[in-house]
């Protein structure tokens, strides 16, 4: 449930580096802790974010969790499917349930995020 090819944050987000951008979502662990997700609030494409900024919310029947930008940059896409089908985050957190894509200001910073082994240790604590 923690793919080896992704990077992670301590706030339970995953980051998938692609050519000029990174795709961001929340981890299996995070969606399981939240329970059934019923509402997602995401930033508009074009929004500039600083690393650690709260830039959205994922809300379940019982609680709400902020989403933090894992890396500084510009939001270039968001997953509009989640408006009608927020449950995709539960059923496919690393695939169809992705949240946004960010064009990083400093792409090398991705390497500073947690790798799968480090994130796994974090969730097992």
């Amino acid at each position, binding site marked *: 449930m923690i793919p080896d090819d992704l990077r992670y944050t301590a706030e339970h987000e995953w980051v998938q580096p692609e050519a000029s951008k990174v795709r961001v979502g929340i981890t299996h662990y995070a969606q399981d802790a939240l329970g059934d997700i019923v509402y997602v609030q995401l930033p508009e494409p074009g929004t500039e974010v600083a690393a650690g900024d709260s830039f959205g919310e994922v809300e379940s029947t*019982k609680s709400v969790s902020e989403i933090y930008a894992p890396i500084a940059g510009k939001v270039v896409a968001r997953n509009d499917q989640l408006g009608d089908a927020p449950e995709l985050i539960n059923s496919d957190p690393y695939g169809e349930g992705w949240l946004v894509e960010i064009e990083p200001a400093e792409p090398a910073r991705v390497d500073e995020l947690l790798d799968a082994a480090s994130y796994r240790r974090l969730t097992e604590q």
Partner: protein
Amino acid sequence: MTEAALLRPALYPRHAELGAKFAAFGGWEMPLEYAGGGVLKEHAAVREAVGVFDVSHLGKATVTGPGAAGFVNACLTNDLGRIGPGKAQYTLCCDDATGGVVDDIIAYLNAADDVFLVPNAANTAEVVRRLAAAAPPDVTVTDRHRDFAVLAVQGPRSADVLAAMGLPTGHGYMSFTSAGDVTVCRTGYTGEHGYELVAPVGRATELWDAIMAAGAEHGIRACGLAARDTLRTEMGYPLHGQDLSPEITPVQARSGWAVGWSKPRFWGRDALLAEKEAGPRRTLWGLEVLDRGIPRPHMTVLSGDTPVGEITSGTFSPTRRIGIALALLDTAAGLVEGSEVEVDVRGRRSRMKVVKPPFVSAGVR
């Protein structure tokens, strides 16, 4: 506050086997939701088929001895004289001085000298303390919180499940009957046709297994207390500690139907009659969200920029697929059914309409 060790229900191992996530409810570690289920599926099972809840954290107390029913009737708000033996009644334990709600309770009238009470887990000790302190010498109040398991079988197929177990099903809403050492009550807090089975705690596992076996062909699901909360909120049923509390009176919470106003005595009578006469300063209403927000307890309700009340319960309604809430709204704001208000949802304004609950029509009978 130091965290006291949580009590575990007898069925804890069953819940753990089913992959339950647990949470603390009134000092008990109870299932919140189950693996493979989740609030939405568990909620839907109860609305469309049948679900079973372990609600053994609920309190249990007996009031026995000559005049027990009369004594209870002189303390709790509802009029026990309206029901006969074999019937249950929703009633309130109010503070005598303020009329605030110490707890809401189901009272089962066994006989004039035998009343069984089911208070909320967190309030049982206090309700027992207040009753015991007031009881005449020949009436005994006993806390039996850990002696019984309570399993709620709820949903349109609940009667089929009980029938398959050989348990009685035909009795009316809010009545109960015995089958050996199991009491079968036509009660619940979901808004659906359902039963609550009260059994000696030693029988809990056997009873749970029998319910799950009999329910399999009816699509039964083990349901956690998270689904119980969305189900009861859709019905506008109050939860003590949120919509009812020592700071909230039944007049404010629109629970006056559970008060025997013509009774000569019950705790809080003077305060509540005076408040009823003068009109409450705030009233519990339902709110239906008109956009995508989900209201949560303690959020502020606004009319224009004026705070006019506070959310007491709020969630996403799985049936309606919108946010719904119960809120105490100031009488002075002059809001009526259909009025539009806003709620500050973490810095964003969400539009909501004032309604009278329930949010979903009841199928209890």
